[in-house]
């Protein structure tokens, strides 16, 4: 696995979330844009950058953000949603090279100093969760929450993701994941998943791009866990990954056999699951029918994952934590508390 070419830029704000802007058409390759949300400063901001062909970067737009940016995701190619430690969610639109806030949902999460901790988007729906254990479902066209789960969890929620349009998955600081069925009227989770019997926080969730029942989580003790949401309450596989808490896990959007993780210890790893397939190991899904399901993801085959997955460290270990990572095509974007962002190009998959 070779990596050639990397560029970086100092931005003098600690980066909390970095997200590639979705390409509106394939002609845009080579001039990708990405957004960065900062944290822990007196005045935080969301900035939009564009990478020029000569390896330089240009600041396209920047806008103030109240509170730390705790979660960020692109709803469409022009709409950017953020969750804030001040307890609110914001929606920004990119118009004529400026970011304007077109929608703000205030006071979604009050209790707890950290406010809202994460945001996820699916179509026109946004979901936020917070340190107070609440989950809010929002619609971009409405200024009030569509649905509120007041006590979705009895402790802080760390991350949230939509496995399907009608389902919502949250992870909390105790190592539990809860699945909510958005179509029902119940206020409780329809399923609860447990990482282990120790109270280890699950920091981040990543959903398989095409198979929504496969989820990978990163925990506070550096463990990665692969889950099949349809089967059982415990992870299919647990991998001991980093020595420090895992900050973010990401599936490659086009090639989900590859995942990328970053940690608070300043590490950035690429996990190549394709080698599991090529090693000729039977990829058996644990479905009740007993027949081999060859379209299943190699991540579900626990023994193979433990022994065959190739892991590469993409950078030498940094002294300060890497908080966020995103991958698009052959480029990996990451940044953290050393107040700079980095892009590694030509990642071989």
């Amino acid at each position, binding site marked *: 696995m070779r990596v050639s070419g990397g560029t970086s830029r100092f931005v003098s704000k600690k980066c909390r979330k970095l997200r590639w802007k979705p390409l509106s058409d394939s002609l845009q390759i080579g001039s990708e844009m990405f957004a960065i949300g900062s944290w822990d*400063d*007196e005045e935080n901001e969301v900035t939009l950058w564009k990478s020029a062909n000569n390896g330089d970067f240009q600041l396209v737009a920047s806008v103030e953000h109240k509170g730390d940016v705790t979660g960020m995701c692109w709803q469409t190619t022009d709409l950017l949603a953020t969750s804030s430690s001040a307890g609110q969610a914001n929606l920004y639109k990119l118009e004529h090279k400026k970011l304007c806030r077109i929608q703000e949902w205030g006071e979604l999460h009050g209790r707890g100093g*950290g406010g809202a901790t994460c945001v996820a988007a699916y179509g026109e729906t946004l979901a936020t969760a917070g340190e107070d254990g609440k989950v809010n479902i929002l619609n971009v066209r409405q200024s009030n929450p569509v649905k509120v789960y007041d006590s979705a969890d009895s402790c802080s929620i760390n991350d949230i993701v939509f496995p399907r349009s009608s389902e919502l998955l949250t992870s909390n600081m105790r190592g539990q994941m809860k699945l909510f069925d958005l179509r029902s009227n119940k206020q409780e989770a329809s399923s609860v998943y447990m990482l282990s*019997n*120790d109270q280890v926080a699950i920091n981040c969730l990543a959903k398989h791009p095409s198979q929504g029942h496969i989820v990978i989580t990163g925990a506070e003790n550096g463990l990665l866990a692969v889950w099949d949401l349809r089967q059982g309450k415990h992870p299919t596989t647990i991998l001991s990954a980093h020595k420090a808490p895992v900050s973010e896990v990401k599936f490659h959007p086009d090639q989900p056999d590859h995942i990328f993780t970053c940690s608070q210890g300043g590490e950035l790893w690429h996990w190549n699951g394709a080698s599991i397939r090529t090693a000729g190991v039977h990829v058996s899904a644990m479905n009740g029918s007993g027949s081999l399901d060859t379209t299943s993801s190699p991540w579900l085959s626990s023994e193979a994952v433990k022994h065959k997955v190739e892991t590469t460290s993409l950078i030498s270990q940094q002294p300060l934590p890497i908080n966020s990572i995103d991958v698009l095509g052959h480029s990996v974007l990451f940044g953290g508390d050393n107040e700079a962002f980095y892009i590694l190009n030509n990642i071989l998959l």
Partner: protein
Amino acid sequence: DPKSEGYLLPQLLHWISLHFKDCEDGARSVLSQSSDSPEDHVLYWDTLLDFVLQGRMDQARNLLKLHTDFNTDMFASMDQLLRKMPLPSNTVSCGDFLIKWKNWQMEVVSRVQAGEFAVYPQLNNIAEILAGSEEALDGMANKCKTWYQWMVYRLLYTNPCVATYDLGVYAQQAIDRFGGLDTLTSLDSVLLGLTELDLPQVVKELCMTLDGLWFPAHLLDILCHANSLNPNKNVIPNIAGLREYLLLEYATSLMSHNSLWQAGVIYFDQCPVQGRQRLEALLERVALTSNYKANKVIHIAKERGLHSVVASTCKVMGMKALAGNDTGSAMTWALRSGDAKFTTFLADRLLAEYTQSGRFSSTDLLDNLGASIIVSERLTFLGKYREFSRMREEGDNTGAADLLHSLLWSRLAPKYFWITLLIDAVPYLTSDEVLFTSDQTYQLLQCLEELIKDTSIPEKHRIVLEEEETAIRLAVAKNLALALIKEGDNNGGSNSVY
């Protein structure tokens, strides 16, 4: 202010040429004015002089060539002198260089005395300077903006092999020429300190004049590393101590910044003597504005083995959660800190919530305590009681009764909860099925007696106890009877064999 084996003067000249670039501007101006007689340009001679003073002979000669009278003898002679001037290089030893240089200067002096340059006073002046004449050099002082500029020019033409330890003397002379110690600016003081190799003085001046400690701290760090590479190690005594002092001060100032505290941690890591203690003390003062930040602090503390910081951070976060009425989060933080007292306090809270509302508020916590159930006895009881509660809901009567008995008899339950447990026991005592053995029933009775005799229980519990006492005694008696009969039957069954 380094320690190199080479010549000092070239480095000084380089330094001066970086800071005083007027001659370059002048040269550009002269060259850009394309006229037949560039020497008439107002800056021509000044620029030429500057180049000569700074030892930039090639550029000086280039300017000289532009002079219309270049073809005359005296110009050729000057050009030759400039060309022949020896410059220090690493290939030539100091002694050899000095001999060459002295020879050259004698040649200059002889030509001056022969009056070769008499016609052109400017040229004569240059020659005098080359000859190292104090008078001429003194005259140059007016051209110099600062004392150190003049000092270097003087050294070039009087003592090119100057050693570092002699620099102080020349510096002093230069300062005197320029107005004495009273007129020193802070930059001047720093430079003076440098020439005298007085490092503490330099650092003191820097700390006093500069806003933050960034510059002195990093400077000392570089010097310290350079010093440790130096064969004769004690060139600068006590430098490690000074470096650590500055780094500690700088890192401490970083820690008070709301965002740069993380950088401060890294600086403390570089201080071998006191870094760890200071970090321990200051890490606790970082404002824990969110779970995310608290987790980062905990990770930093864990990495460095500062367990007390881990525990205290968890406790602070637990208390914060509690203040926001979030008992679930508070308990998770308490378990993470491993603090038995705090956990007991929270378990009592949860039990109180139960007695008030009849429900548990954090069932998903209590059902999945795992290994942390042993952190505190109260928590163990709480977990077990929740288990009992679940068994009761599911209708597992035998299991529930057994558990209930063991909770009381093992004294795991806190005294204030006994009455609740006894009341819980009544339906099991009065059920048709015999769920308690006679021994167990006696033990339950004993617990009841003990509770009645206990004078320390609060008033409202006493009232409940009095109300329920009869019912409990009745239930106990009934169960005892049934249990004895059943056991008697079992015994009797075996007796009937005889």
